């Protein structure tokens, strides 16, 4: 069958850079899906995007849909003909429904019975007659943020300016808003002009002549080459931040890399301030020397060619100079203030209307920090440092610098605390208590920082849960999930001997004392447990732990996360070993029957009827004692499975559900004791063995 290329280009006013790539991918996926649904064959899809366009070029698209040959089964042979041997109504009706005639009928056996069959043939329609459906594909694109314009009803990422829809050299007629499809694209805003695309395969080259590099990968490489060239010429090191490169790449159609400089005095500002001013505010790449020190230069990417670069560079220098002047003014002003006056100001900052001020929040965090410090048996001096860090952790929030550069919270706190003579540990903890700041950030390096981080995050989560603000679905405005993951990550890496529930309850106690609790305590605690379990599940899942093992480990309370991880690894290893299945079955039997124990009593050996009861009881007591000092989770597991033989003998000779009340109660109580010991490790009955 003949093939043609297919081109669709959506011309737009400048899209937000952060949505360009995902929108391009979406368009390509939609195109692929549509072609597959329509059974139109094609070779492959090339994607293009710039701030002003999303495009797909589909190579080798079949001229028509695939023909369909299909066997259809009709009525049984015995009702296909009437008494006189003519085709019955049922048979005729069937063939008519299939668009064939009775002459096409043949018989075929299905399950020992003969049925009417026909071969159906559906001729594929020409692609060109179906392609107008692409209108639906274009208008059904979904974007994170949509807008309306002029008097149009369509909600789209930005106003649509033109549409190209071309199959071979034929224009596919589409009308979207006030735009009618054609074959004319638009070039670079200033360097290029309109260009007619005669055939889809000319698309990239035609745009290139109009100073538009439509392939984002090629554009990115142009930027990287420009950066490399500067590095070589100047002897610089220009670290390329992937996210920034991606953003810059989607702000330009024709990139040219250039550099500018700023006054050396500004290098006295903290590095993060310089980097934030350049990267976040201006989308510049900071420049370093070979020793990794910042140099008074920046690299930027212009949407245009290399003419008049000196004007562009000068303009950018002027903007950066104004920003850095502001920053150094703030830096000097901030240093005139002391910590006490800053803390005083926190008393007037409302953290959340129903929760209170930032100052009140930090008073709670300070108490929780003290409890954690004691639980972790810190030295008196270390306790003092943690307490001071908690006391002043938020003092930089009222500085000019953090007001202007909110992303520098914590970082400025560390700088200023050091300048104001606070101990190094305290200063560092102020910055570290925000860690991990995002999914791939590391946990606080210092113990003080980690304690403060856990206390602050736990307070945030518990306060919001206490007033009924709980993340659901995509709704998590206070990023509570990220903070809970942060706690889980810290506890898992620091391996503290602390149960998560204990920290949770300590924090909850603070809420109750301060009258913040607006809900039932047990209900809140339950929600918190479920919430944290989901985070722990996620962590274990990422560690490659099998699903049923995770469920088994999280059946009861979370407890010590480090131990939980260790148990997970032990189970992963043990389940490969011979005898695992049998061990597990024995332990599960106990757990399963112990569920029936309603009123547990002290086990009385006097009520034992056979020696196997006594043997299991003794074994249990010995294992119980050893288990408390097992030392490792591997040993703990081995101790539990050492009960296997006694358990099996016991069940072979003992009827747990005895008719006699006393006997039954005594037996169930023994089962319950053992079950509790086993479940303390993991709900073994939840583990799946093949």
């Amino acid at each position, binding site marked *: 069958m003949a093939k043609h290329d297919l081109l669709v280009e959506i011309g737009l*006013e*400048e*899209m*937000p*850079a*952060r949505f360009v790539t995902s929108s391009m991918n979406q368009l390509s996926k939609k195109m692929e899906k549509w072609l597959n649904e329509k059974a139109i064959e094609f070779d492959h899809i090339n994607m293009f995007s710039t*701030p002003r366009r999303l495009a797909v070029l589909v190579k080798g698209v079949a001229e028509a849909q695939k023909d369909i040959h299909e066997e259809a089964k009709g009525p049984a042979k015995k009702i296909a003909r009437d008494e006189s041997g003519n085709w019955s109504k049922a048979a005729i009706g069937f063939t008519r429904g299939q668009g064939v005639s009775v002459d096409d009928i043949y018989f075929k056996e299905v399950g020992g019975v003969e049925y009417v069959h026909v071969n159906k043939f559906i001729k594929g329609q020409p692609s060109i007659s179906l392609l107008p459906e692409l209108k639906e594909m274009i208008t059904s694109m979904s974007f994170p*943020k949509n*807008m*309306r*314009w*002029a*008097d149009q009803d369509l909600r789209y990422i*930005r*106003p649509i*300016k033109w549409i190209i829809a071309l199959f071979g050299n034929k224009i596919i007629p589409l009308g979207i808003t*006030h735009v009618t499809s054609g074959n004319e694209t638009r070039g670079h*805003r*200033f*360097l290029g002009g309109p260009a007619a695309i005669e055939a889809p395969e000319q698309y990239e080259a035609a745009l290139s002549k109009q100073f538009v590099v439509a392939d984002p990968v090629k554009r990115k490489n142009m930027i990287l080459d420009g950066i490399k060239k500067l590095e070589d010429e100047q002897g610089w090191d220009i670290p390329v931040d992937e996210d920034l490169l991606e953003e810059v790449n989607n*702000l*330009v159609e024709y990139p040219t890399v250039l550099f500018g400089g700023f006054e050396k005095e500004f290098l006295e500002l903290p590095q993060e301030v310089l980097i934030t001013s350049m990267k976040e505010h*201006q989308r510049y790449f900071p420049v370093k020397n070979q020793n990794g020190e910042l140099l008074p230069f920046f690299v*930027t990417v*212009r*949407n*245009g060619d290399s*003419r*008049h670069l000196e*004007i*562009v560079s*000068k*303009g*950018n220098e*002027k*903007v*950066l*100079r*104004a920003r850095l*002047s*502001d920053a150094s003014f703030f830096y000097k002003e901030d240093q005139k203030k002391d910590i006490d006056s800053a803390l005083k100001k926190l008393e*007037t*900052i*409302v953290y959340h*209307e129903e929760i209170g001020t930032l100052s009140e929040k930090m008073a709670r965090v300070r108490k929780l920090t003290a409890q954690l410090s004691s639980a972790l048996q810190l030295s008196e001096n270390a306790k003092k440092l943690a307490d001071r860090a908690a006391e002043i952790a938020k003092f930089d929030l009222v500085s000019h610098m953090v007001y202007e550069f909110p992303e520098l919270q914590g970082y400025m706190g560390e700088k200023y605390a050091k300048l104001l003579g606070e101990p190094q540990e305290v200063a560092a903890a102020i910055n570290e208590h925000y860690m991990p700041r995002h999914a791939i950030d590391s946990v606080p390096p210092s113990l003080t920082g980690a304690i403060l981080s856990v206390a602050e995050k736990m307070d945030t989560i518990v306060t919001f849960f206490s007033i009924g603000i709980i993340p659901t679905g995509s709704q998590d405005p206070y990023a509570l999930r990220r903070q809970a993951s942060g706690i889980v990550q810290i506890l898992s890496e620091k391996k503290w001997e602390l149960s998560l529930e204990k920290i949770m309850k300590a924090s909850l106690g603070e809420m109750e004392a301060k009258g913040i609790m607006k809900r039932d305590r047990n209900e809140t605690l339950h929600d918190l447990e479920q919430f944290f379990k989901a985070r722990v599940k996620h962590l274990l899942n990422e560690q490659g732990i099998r699903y049923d093992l995770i469920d088994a480990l999280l059946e009861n309370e979370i407890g010590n996360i480090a131990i939980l991880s260790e148990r997970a690894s032990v189970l992963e290893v043990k389940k490969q070993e011979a005898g695992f299945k049998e061990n597990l079955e024995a332990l599960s039997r106990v757990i399963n029957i112990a569920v029936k124990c309603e009123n547990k009593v002290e086990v009385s050996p006097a009520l034992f009827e056979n020696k196997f009861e006594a043997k299991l009881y003794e074994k249990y007591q010995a294992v119980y004692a050893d288990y408390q000092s097992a030392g490792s989770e591997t040993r703990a597991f081995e101790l539990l499975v050492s009960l296997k033989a006694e358990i099996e003998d016991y069940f072979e000779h003992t009827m747990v559900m005895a008719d006699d009340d006393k006997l039954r109660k005594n037996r169930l109580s023994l089962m319950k004791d053992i079950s509790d010991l086993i479940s303390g490790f993991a709900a073994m009955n939840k583990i799946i063995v093949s």
Partner: protein
Amino acid sequence: MNIQNMILTLQKHWSGHGCILMNAYDTEKGAGTMSPYTFLRAIGPEPWSVAYVEPSRRPADGRYGENPNRLYQHHQFQVIMKPSPDNIQEIYLDSLRALGIDPLEHDIRFVEDNWENPSLGCAGLGWEVWLDGMEITQFTYFQQVGGLECKPVSVEITYGIERLASYIQEKENVFDLEWTDGFTVRDIFMQPEYEHSKYTFETSDLDMLFQLFTMYEKEAHRQMEEGLVHPAYDYVLKCSHTFNLLDAKGAISVTERTGYIARCRNLARKVAKTFYEEREKLGFPILKQKEERINGQA
């Protein structure tokens, strides 16, 4: 090009594209958007194209005339076109060319910037326009004004006059900018900058300002009940400016702040709704005129 000529150039440009040239509205306000020529006229189905210079007061930005970049009062050149024309970006870029900015010699980019003014119940999508890395214009398609969905959508273009002038005139200090031959911004605005800063941060009477806020608010509600949108809206603007003065002096705690903003927003929403209703009662006269013109031609 001095500021006076910049303004004349922009006026000529936008009047050439059908904008009514208007003057600043005479009530204090923080931004050109708050002028009734924008806030009210962006509401409803009637077409509207207008351009004007708006002196905008930001009490908190007052720096006694000592900071080279910040002003108690700066100037915005504001353009509103409803419905937004299809080639609005090209018209805008032509205005830059008219100001002597040749896009081929510079780097001009449209960088995503979504605008929101919760105290007026307004939201829009668009860009900040960068000229060699400097933000010179806010470019916004209004989606919501006073809590009402915009249909048709207005486009708002706001040039920061001093910003743009500092680039065109290559001046580092805003006070060195030439307004017209022989007059700088310093000559005209230094004294008021100093005095307004001193007033805002030192000598203003807080009790009086608190009282005024309450009185203005009450009057706004009362006039709205009479269906008198414009007098009511004047008092909304006065509330907003009074709030800004109080806020700049740190007289409003963060808790109260939310409360005051909510009060302004309620007023703005009510005004928006009343304006729509009053125009509807009048039969949306500007829309009617336009339709008659079109029918007349046909």
